[in-house]
């Protein structure tokens, strides 16, 4: 684990930090909107993973230009990520829509309160467990 | 012009009960027509089986394959002597029992009679399919169909007690068949590459010798219908069913299917010689012997007549298992004879118990003092059946017991001879008291238990004719079987020396 190794792989460290941060938010925050944000952070880390892997050393943007011997970065990850971003946006949209409906039906978007209401529905009034 | 071949008769024997059940459903609205359909189906089936009997005695072994279910495992049928014997017993007794059922169901005004007759037809059909199964796969399929088709019969009365009895019935039978038998069958399939019933067995050299007793145990305990202790509880639990159900199914088709399957497994899957060579069934001799004695002792303690008869059945069934466990041809033949003799005897006893219920609504033996004087024919039939079970000449049961004792003497299992003798004594102890009490005990001063007194000339009289004739017929059948014992012996013997 030399300094060169750590610095040379900085993009992966960023990815890992974002991934863990996102997952942590999803798991630890009770507010549903915050969970969705956590999911977004998690998904962003994946985007960075893909894009950063596409960079070729000394490569330029993958837009064809005149001349021979030009090194381009790999365009495929960019394409993949565009798709993944769209998927992420769609997921966020559906998630937020469901959260709006939850707000209408439950009156709250805090997970623990929702669980409490669900529990009462499951087991009847007065079941305090 | 139909060419009447044994193969055709075989196919018909399977189709007739099925068609019959469909026709019974259609005849739901008219009880007389429905009863006629039942009887006609039973008679037609019996005639067909008789035709097959003649052919098989002459040496024919008709077979046919239906279809491959999981290739190459197929549903296939082939007749051999043991199966022929079982089929004759099942179909013959169906006629007798149908006549009896008509008397009983009408006498007690039971509801859901159509469901009753339909399930009966399907159950008998499954029993015939089991009898004629050519491989263990087919037998397993129809074994399960038999369990499912008899469940509605067991819970017929619809009371909480009936539901509980049904749960025990289904629980034990499905539990043993799925838990033990299925594994035994697939294990056999895996090591032997086939499940066809083959004289001499299919397992020789295929299984590690130390594992053969385990495989046998999985089979014998998996065949829960043979009521080998400790998986016998379903039999007394099933007594919540109306008596015709108990008579045919639990003295006839269901339990006989169980011990028949045990015999088939011993003869055609393991092979008698293989078993005796590996000694894998030694433990079974003792378990069966214990089952015989313990069940008889429990029978003595029961006051409810049907419960007593149920435990008697458990005990008598273990005779067959014992015969199979001795792993000699004489043991197997004795077991086969016991199937026929016990069926005839037990069905008599159960029908009498039902007749007593129809006429007097009594179920406890202690209530039945003096009843024999008012219901003489029923009690005479009971006496005949009892003597057969006890094993006294000139009743058929004497021969099956004799052959089993001879087989035990052959293998040097003298203790087993003692067990069989002791069992006869115990049979006396739990069967004869009813007869004695019925004929010789005076009528009690005050009415015991049920409402009616039975001084001569009172309301209680003999059971309806349709309930009296069948048990008398089967009682006399026990005597007839005594004289037919040798042909039966020779018939079964042919499987052990192909």
């Amino acid at each position, binding site marked *: 684990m030399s300094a060169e190794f750590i610095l040379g792989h900085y993009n992966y460290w960023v990815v890992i930090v974002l991934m863990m941060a996102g997952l942590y938010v999803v798991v630890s925050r009770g507010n549903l909107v915050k969970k969705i944000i956590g*999911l977004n952070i998690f998904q962003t880390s994946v985007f960075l993973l893909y894009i950063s892997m596409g960079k070729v050393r000394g490569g330029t943007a993958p837009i064809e230009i005149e001349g021979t011997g030009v090194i381009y970065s790999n365009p495929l990850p960019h394409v*993949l990520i565009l*798709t993944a971003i769209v998927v992420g946006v769609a997921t966020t949209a559906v998630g937020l829509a*469901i959260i709006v409906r939850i707000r209408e039906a439950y009156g709250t978007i805090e997970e623990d309160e929702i669980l409490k209401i669900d529990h009462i529905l499951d087991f009847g009034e007065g079941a305090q467990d | 012009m139909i060419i009447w071949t044994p193969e055709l008769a075989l196919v018909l024997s399977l189709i007739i009960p099925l068609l019959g059940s469909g026709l019974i459903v259609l005849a739901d609205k008219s009880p007389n027509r429905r009863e006629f359909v039942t009887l006609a189906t039973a008679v037609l089936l019996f005639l067909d089986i008789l035709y097959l009997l003649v052919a098989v005695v002459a040496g024919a072994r008709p077979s046919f394959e239906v279809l491959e279910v999981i290739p190459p495992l197929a549903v296939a049928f082939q007749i051999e002597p043991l199966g022929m014997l079982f089929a004759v017993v099942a179909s013959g007794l169906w006629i007798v029992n149908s006549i009896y059922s008509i008397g009983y169901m009408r006498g007690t005004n039971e509801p859901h009679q159509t469901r009753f007759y339909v399930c009966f037809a399907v159950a008998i059909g499954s029993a015939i399919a089991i009898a004629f199964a050519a491989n263990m796969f087919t037998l397993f399929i129809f074994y399960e169909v038999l369990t499912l088709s008899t469940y509605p019969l067991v*819970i017929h009365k619809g009371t909480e007690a009936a539901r509980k009895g049904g749960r025990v019935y289904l629980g034990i039978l499905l539990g043993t068949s799925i838990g033990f038998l*299925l594994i035994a069958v697939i294990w056999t399939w895996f090591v032997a590459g086939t499940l066809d019933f083959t004289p001499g067995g299919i397992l020789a050299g295929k299984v590690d010798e130390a594992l053969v007793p385990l495989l046998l145990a999985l089979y014998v305990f998996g065949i829960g219908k043979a009521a080998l202790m400790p998986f016998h509880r379903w039999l007394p639990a099933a007594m919540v069913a109306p008596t015709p159900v108990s008579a045919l199914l639990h003295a006839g088709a269901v339990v006989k299917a169980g011990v028949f399957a045990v015999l088939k497994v011993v003869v055609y899957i393991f092979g008698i010689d293989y078993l005796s060579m590996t000694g894998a069934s030694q433990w079974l001799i003792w378990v069966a012997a214990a089952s015989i004695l313990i069940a008889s002792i429990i029978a003595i303690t029961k006051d409810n007549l049907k419960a007593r008869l149920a435990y008697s059945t458990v005990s008598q069934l273990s005779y067959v298992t014992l015969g199979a466990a001795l792993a000699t041809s004489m043991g197997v033949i004795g077991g086969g004879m016991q199937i026929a003799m016990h069926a005839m005897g037990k069905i008599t006893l159960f029908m009498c118990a039902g007749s007593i219920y129809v006429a007097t609504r009594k179920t406890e033996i202690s209530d039945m003092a003096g009843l024999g004087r008012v219901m003489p024919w029923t009690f005479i039939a009971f006496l005949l059946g009892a003597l057969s079970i006890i094993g006294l000449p000139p009743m058929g049961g004497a021969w099956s017991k004799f052959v089993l004792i001879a087989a035990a003497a052959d293998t040097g299992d003298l203790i087993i001879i003692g067990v069989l003798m002791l069992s006869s004594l115990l049979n006396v102890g739990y069967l004869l008291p009813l007869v004695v009490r019925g004929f010789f005990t005076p009528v009690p001063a005050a009415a015991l238990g049920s409402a009616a007194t039975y001084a001569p000339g009172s309301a209680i009289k003999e059971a309806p004719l349709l309930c009296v004739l069948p048990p008398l017929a089967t009682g006399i059948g026990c005597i007839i079987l005594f004289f037919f014992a040798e042909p039966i012996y020779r018939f079964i013997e042919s499987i052990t020396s192909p």
Partner: protein
Amino acid sequence: MFANLSPHLAPLQVVIPLIAAPLSLFLRNATAAWLFALVATWSAFVIACLLLVQVLDQGVLSYALGGWPPPWGIEYRLDAANAPVLVIVSGIGAAVMTYARQGILAEIEKHNQVLFFPVFLLALAGLLGVTITGDAFNLFVFLEISSLSTYVLVSLGANRDKRALSAAISYLIAGTIGATFFVIGIGLLYMATGTLNIMDLAMRIADMGDSRLVRAAFAFIIVGIGLKLALFPLHLWLPNAYTFAPSAVTVFIAATSTKVAVYVLMRFVFTVFGTRFDFQELTLSYLFLPLALVGMFVPSIVAVFQTNVKRLLAYSSIAQIGYMLLGLSFATIAGLTAASIHLFNHALMKGALFMAVGAVALRMGSTDIDAFTGLGRKMPWTMAAFVAGGLSLIGLPLTVGFVSKWLLIEAAFASGQWWIAGFVVMSSLIAVIYVWRVVELAYLHDTPEHVNVTEAPASVLVPMWGLVLANFYFGINAQFTTSVARRAAEALLGVFP
């Protein structure tokens, strides 16, 4: 015209439901939308059958989308492993669409009814796409299309019970994490091999041998897909999602989405990573096998104590997925045959069962176990279908459940681990308990005084009984399904032996 179409059947399989989805939005009327969706789903089913016939005849079918040849272009690849899954998914889709009419009227709010159909068609298109594609990233995209639609479908149950919403959001979070893990795995594979085409990946990984990158990719993919197929203990989203979704939706997702996920798992574990991958053997025997065994057992026991029949069947489904994973973990032809055939058989079983429960929900307004009291008399056809499905679940002969169990136990013996047979058998016996609870209540008790219901309508009974009869037919004559399953197993294992 059909001669012109037939080389293009593969993309049409996905395109027809995909385009039908937005088109059905334009039909304002729920009935018109239903008819339109009906035509679309049944066409998809016909196409799937045609494709299966072609595959069984010719072997592998490959279609290059846009004319770009693989491995640079996206390829739709059909072999004996995924062609049957197409038939299952589209068949269930068609059956459910026929069945769904009444349920939708009863369970979804009026102004949302038209919207059910586009979302359903999108879910169907997504699942079909997952099955048919030969490109790993394309798989992810279709997986997400189907998942997002499914989240919406589950939430539509909110009209009856608002817990559908919390079920939907839990499902969304769990499913998204799963899909994202999956795409991370795909990314790592791309990093290692430079390709996204499944067959190409398989070749290159086989050449590469072991490497930490590939192992990491394997782990991410397994966990990602595991969440989708409710691999124990990643199953927590399933019971609520199945229970609170509208009945027709439950039938659909119970019979299809987890099956497709199992197929994806098999495809990746056996084709992409292949059995030469050393890490594989460890994972299969030390991870999948114990998880499958626990997954067969624990949910079955939990099912016994449920008071809601839908939830009972949901837990039962998790147990049945355990059966499939068990077959998978043997990694033999016999094991994969059992797993593949159970894919098909379970779809038939659970489809019939959930349809029966849906019919009861339609008439009684509830799926609590008490609602079933005495229905044996009032709704005879429905309860008979339930009994048939129940017998299949228990695995009694003459039903498809028996065929699956037989093959699974046979595979256990063949792999030398005969003690596993005991587990399989024990979980069947537990199934007897929870099935019989419902059956007893329906047939051996009488309906309460105030209950006055009639049998379910024909549009509900016909697809239900179609599935029931299929249950019996393929249980009695399993030649076709067994041979297809065996070919599927060979296709999965035999590519890079």
